[in-house]
């Protein structure tokens, strides 16, 4: 795995450069203080992983569905389970796996005792 930690302001440039690669997956991770989004691309010899770190309150990142149509489901899934907003994705608020009337906090965010009190 080739892990690259990148700044959010280079997002468009980096995605543009990988336009012809195969997108494998998008993974959200709750790191306690902040959230991270990992983009995995298939490279010649290994998986190339780009890491972007987001603030925990109101996390936002641009969408890549127009470059990679397969990102549609990955973005929806990450939005459902981590509450990350993918700006520009028109269908992001349609629930994918969660029930349509789901109201709770995103289920894969790390638990803190007081939120359930």
């Amino acid at each position: 795995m080739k892990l690259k930690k990148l700044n959010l302001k280079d997002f468009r440039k980096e995605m543009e450069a990988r336009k012809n690669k195969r997108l494998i997956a998008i993974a959200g991770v709750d790191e306690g203080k902040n959230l991270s989004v990992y983009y995995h691309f298939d490279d010649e010899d290994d998986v190339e992983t780009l890491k972007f770190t987001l603030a925990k309150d109101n996390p936002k990142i641009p969408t890549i569905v127009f470059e990679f149509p397969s990102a549609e489901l990955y973005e929806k899934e990450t939005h459902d389970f981590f509450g990350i907003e993918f700006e520009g994705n028109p269908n992001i608020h349609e629930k994918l796996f969660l029930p349509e009337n789901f109201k709770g906090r995103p289920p894969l965010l790390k638990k803190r005792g007081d939120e359930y009190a």
Partner: protein
Amino acid sequence: MHDFYLPIGPINPSLKEPTCIKLNLDGNIIKIAKLQLGYTHKGIEGLLEGKKIEQALYIVQRICGICSFCHSNGFNQSIEKMLNYDAPKRVKFIRTLIAELERIQSHSLWMGFMFHEFGFETMFQSLLRDREYILEIFEKVTGGRIHHAINKPKTVRYDLREQDIKFILERMKILEKEFTKYLDIVKKDKITKKRLENVGIISKQMAKRYCLVRPIARASGLNNDIRQKHPYDAYPYLDFDVMVNRTGDAYARLGVRLMEILESIKIIRQLIHNLPDEKIPDPKLVFIKEGVATSQVEAPRGENFYFTIVKENRIDRVKIRTPTFAVINILPILLENRPIGDVPVILHSLDPCFSCMERIIIVKDNKTEVLNEDAFLHKYCGLHH
């Protein structure tokens, strides 16, 4: 155009697993198709958090009942990458053998149901009988017909005995004869051709744009077989071909899978004839302070991707991208402007495994209490019963 959507599923005789496709029709022709998912979620990614590595290995095998070994292999591979560990050659060979046997049984099951979808019942019965030959091998070698539970970090639980090897080779002889016969039938049978040719066509450009994986991409001429691209386990020592077809329709997908079975039989023979004679290490607990790794394995349905983060010997996060999740996005596009009668054939030609794909919602609270569906709806959706 009216705004009525005809639901197919979640329970329908043509679906083997629960999902729902909503169709907007103009007469007999599908105009818009929408997918509704989430009927078989099990909460596995949430369940894995905080578990020890051995416990997590036990859980990931329960993701799927058809490719359970490939899930454990994918997870195991990411753990071994964190440990910088290269398994002994015999362990690698046994893992590859189980993976290839699993490929044959998964493809036979898929093909059986594919023939069942358009009423070729004799082939359906024959293929399910052939799958039984493989399940018997699994029972003999690993003790489990469906969940083999043979993988352990750094090793495997069971070694191959002389009698197992003899048994496998006998079975391969029978299977090769049968599948050569089926290939002949598929090539000549007019009804099979008429039903599957030019149905659900995916072009190479489309396969590339939608980042498709698995036999579906290979039926469209896009070779992205992980076994050849990023060889793992015993694949670097083997000589095999990857089947690629160009037409991209349901018939091509059937052909690719049938040829893959014959290729897998070839691989299994190579593995047995070159099996290194060495001792398999005993299973031991592993400890990882901190680690991040990805792994890719070629499951029967395509690439299984694992992204694992371990902290203090416990799982911090596992992201599992199963092959169905990578291809199901294309289903509504394939259904558009096709007659409604094509739905079972197109859906089935993609070989979806919803059980693999939907496994994400966490259904426990801070007391680590597992909620049933009613309690879940009551607690999180505000619904009262």
